[in-house]
């Protein structure tokens, strides 16, 4: 199967606010799919539906179908679902614990044996390209790392529980350009093994890293297609207006 995520007729509401309208979308395995659009267009709401993070919000409701690897997420326990679908947030949010404990937290709650932890911590930090910078200070508090390092730590933390899909919710918007480009390189490396969905405000970023791009506007998906096509020859007028900077 090449489809990692498939949504059909997905609608979402915050109370009475209709935040997503009839989204039909397919995310392919081992690809980077970018979601672009102006603030408030529903792009974060969309990816937070995929791992049911929105369930934590009072008054949130959805209709429609979300299949992850062909399985309806309504039939999956959210805890098990989130183990399969990692998430990296806009602002780095390491736990106020040591670097080691940040990575070990996830495997530990999923019952991984103590003896395996060391190697999981090491391999996760290596995959997130952070190992060389922190290997001598694993017991330092994660809050002492720089913003970019904290974000890579959060990526390593997500990798440590062995997800298949990773959702990035504007992962670079709080970072300087050098840290941001490290994260971009990292995403390209990661797509060999993982399926990635990234929400971004930064169109250059979407153009650089993604294979397909979806353009959202006011809760609707206006256009979805190959990234090259979207940026070179958008079919819709509003997509073109947005990517050429006429609004948003």
């Amino acid at each position, binding site marked *: 199967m090449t489809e990692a995520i498939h949504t059909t007729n997905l609608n979402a509401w915050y109370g009475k606010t209709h935040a997503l309208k009839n989204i039909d979308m397919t995310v392919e395995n081992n690809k980077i799919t970018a979601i672009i659009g102006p603030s408030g267009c529903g792009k974060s709401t969309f990816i937070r539906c995929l791992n049911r993070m929105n369930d934590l919000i009072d008054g949130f409701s959805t209709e429609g179908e979300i299949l992850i690897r062909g399985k309806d997420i309504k039939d999956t326990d959210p*805890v098990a679902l989130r183990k399969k679908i990692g*998430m990296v*947030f806009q602002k780095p949010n390491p736990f106020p614990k040591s670097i080691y404990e940040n990575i070990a937290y996830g495997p530990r709650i999923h019952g991984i044996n103590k003896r395996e932890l060391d190697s999981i911590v090491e391999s996760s930090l290596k995959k997130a390209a952070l190992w060389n910078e922190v290997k001598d200070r694993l017991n330092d508090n994660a809050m002492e790392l720089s913003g970019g390092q904290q974000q890579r730590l959060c990526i390593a933390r997500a990798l440590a529980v062995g997800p298949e899909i990773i959702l990035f919710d504007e992962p670079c918007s709080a970072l300087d350009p050098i840290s941001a480009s490290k994260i971009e390189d990292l995403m390209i490396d990661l797509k060999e093994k993982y399926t990635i969905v990234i929400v971004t405000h930064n169109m250059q970023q979407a153009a650089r890293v993604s294979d397909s791009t979806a353009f959202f506007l006011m809760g609707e998906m206006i256009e979805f297609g190959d990234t090259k096509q979207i940026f070179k020859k958008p079919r819709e007028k509003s997509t073109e207006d947005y990517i050429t900077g006429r609004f948003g």
Partner: protein
Amino acid sequence: MDRLRIQRGHIPYLSEFFHSIKLDRLRMQRIRELAIEKALFLCALVSVLTTIGIVLVLIFETLSFFEEVPILEFLTGTTWAPTYRPQHFGVLPLINGTIMIAAGAAVIAIPLGIASSVYLSEYASAKVRQTVKPVLEILAGIPTVVYGYFAISFITPLIREFIPDANIFNAASASIVVGIMILPMVSSLSEDAMRSVPRSLREGAYALGSTRFDVSTKIVVPAALSGILASFVLAISRAVGETMAVTLAAGATPKMTLNFFESIQTMTAYIVQVSLGDTPHGSIEYQTIFAVGMVLFIMTLLMNIVSMWIKERYREVYS
């Protein structure tokens, strides 16, 4: 031409006039501000001076008490009998009683308080929280004498139902009721501490596949630990100083015991007993209450300092 010149002459004059009015107004404003500041300062001074006054009275009365009774006997003696002959001035039984009540209350209030604060902060919906929290805080507003009455009229009979040997005045009953009394303090302050843990930390943990229990116990409680510990210490300090309920329920028998079903006496209850009794003012018996009050004051002061220190020392810095 003539009229023009007059006008020209007028303009600077008028503006000077207005300028001086403006200055006057500014000056008035400054004076008023200064007066307000001084008045507020005086109000603040009243409470500071009162505190200083109380501490000075305590110190002087305590010092004159220690001219009669050696401080070592006071602090190490195990018999407290200032009103009988032969007199004994060993404060340890009263300290023992106070610590028993505080410890018993803590055993009740800490687990219940932390469980209810975890529930309110992590499990309850906004609606439940908005109803339950005020109700819990009303508990803190009930007059303590009502708690005391509740102890002797309800808890004590209940205890004697199960343990018939229990004295009619006993430490257990008082501990339980003081525990209920300080419960809102623990739960409310701990809940505040947990709620101030940023949402992003919870989301990060949930995104890794945590259950609500994992998030509460492994992320939120550790991150809020300083506030939670500080609430424990403050609540225990409140239990140490609690007076009315223990006077009513715990009895008036200063005793070196660890048996919760016996009658005991706390420092506060002793002070009430002597203040209300017919002990003549100025006598050595009467002065004991200042010495006991001093011990009490030092204990609660230390605990408040410890609480502040914990809050500073173990404050987690997030983001």
